[in-house]
């Protein structure tokens, strides 16, 4: 049993357990923290998949920024616990569970039956010793247009968030 397998087992177990916790717990803050743990475990999995850069970005952006934002909002809105009132929509719950189980089973079956993975293409780009230059070149050549579009999107999101959170509209 290789070290890699051990790391994989621990990280994926942690990811699944904390993801479940995220759904199950009733306190929003704990939900957020569980998700942070999930993301951290996912970052470890990403490193196993030869994507340390993506792993770092994922932790910085998701765990370090987005989820902190969530936490802020939770605190700002003072959401302590979900209302304990009984769920008045049992059918919704039932159908939802059915849908989850069916879709989950289907997807799982499909991915697991995908067969042996194809051998990585000879001279393929990754895995590489240092993949950051490769990603950089891709970003500014093949994905340049997407990159520009993305920058506009981020600007719009910033403006949108500002406008939405304004108290009064003059």
């Amino acid at each position, binding site marked *: 049993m290789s070290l890699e397998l051990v790391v994989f087992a621990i990280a994926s177990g942690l990811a699944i357990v904390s993801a479940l916790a995220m759904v199950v717990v009733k306190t929003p*803050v704990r939900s957020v923290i569980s998700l*942070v743990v999930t993301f951290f475990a996912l970052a470890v999995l990403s490193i196993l998949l030869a994507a340390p*850069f993506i792993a770092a*970005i994922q932790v*910085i952006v998701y765990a*370090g920024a987005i989820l902190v934002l969530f936490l*802020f909002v939770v605190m700002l809105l003072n959401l302590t616990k979900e209302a304990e009132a009984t769920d008045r929509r049992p059918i919704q719950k039932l159908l939802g569970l059915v849908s989850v189980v069916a879709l989950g089973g289907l997807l799982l079956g499909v991915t697991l039956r995908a067969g042996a993975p194809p051998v990585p293409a000879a001279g393929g780009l990754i895995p590489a010793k*240092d993949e950051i230059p490769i990603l950089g070149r891709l970003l500014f050549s093949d994905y340049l247009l997407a990159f520009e579009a993305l920058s506009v999107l981020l600007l719009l999101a910033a403006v949108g968030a500002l406008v939405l959170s304004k108290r009064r509209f003059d």
Partner: protein
Amino acid sequence: MSDATFALVATGAKILFVWVIALATILPNLVWAERRVAGMIQDRPGPNRVGPFGFFQIIADGTKFFMKESVTPLYVDKLLYNLAPWITLMPGLVTFAVIPFGATLPVTIGGVTREVPLVIADVNIGVLYIFAFTGLGIYGLVLAGWSSNNKYSLMGGLRASAQIISYELSMGFAAAGVFLAAGTLRLAGVVEWQQAHVWNVVPQFVGFLVFLIAAFAETNRLPFDLAEAEEELAGGFHAEYSSFKFGMFFMGEYANLIAASALMATLYFGGWSLPGVTFTGVWGALASVAVFFAKTIGFIFLFLWVRWTFPRFRYDQLMDLGWKFLLPLSFFHLIAVAAFVAAK
């Protein structure tokens, strides 16, 4: 001894050295040093009763942290309340994994000589790794503030995290200049580049200033310690902590301080290198380690010095400084560096 076994042993030895020996030596001594420096600056003796130069004050303080009653308030969120100090401690500690603390050390075992780079993990995402963990460190403060179920604590936690998020941007942009110049995200690569060319502080002095100021804010040190401003917040995010858990916040702060100092020494002052000196052989490697720690301790002293000389900022001033001055400044600095690199 096979290569794999050797690598494992070497890594273990490096981990042992960095975390157990180096940190365990510096960290408690800092407590003492801070008091002594404070006394020096304010023209008073500082601790001088317990042992020579009050040196055993460390033991007295440590004992106090452990022996006091650990009070857990009634309405706190117990899980998160207990988790928060650990999270705070983490980023300061893990940062050292990627900081190179010396030149390569030749080790001869059984007639085979192997070069051991004196860095625990020479990863290609070095700086991103550090920023990732710094980002995670925010959770400690926010959670401590929130789980304490106390409005002052919450305010302190929010202040701390907002402050860290704000200054992380400037810090990142300033650091990006360094990596742009070196052409790699590996910290060891940055040190090698500085050894081959020039210390980054010379061409990127503006970047260094931004980084320095941001480092003060990131470590929640005066003049930016708004999160624990006693006069306003009755202690800030750790108001409800006592005894050992409070001690962990304390240690976390010091660990962060040491990490920031080491990082600045590495990014801007050539790390373990000295201009015009090549460190070879076992003694060379040890000398380079000494150089690195000397630089780090120099920065630590700067932190202490500033703490006892500057008054605290107001919160709006802090935010203005971060967003309206440092961030644009770091932008322009980065653009200038990029233009320079592109022109070369």
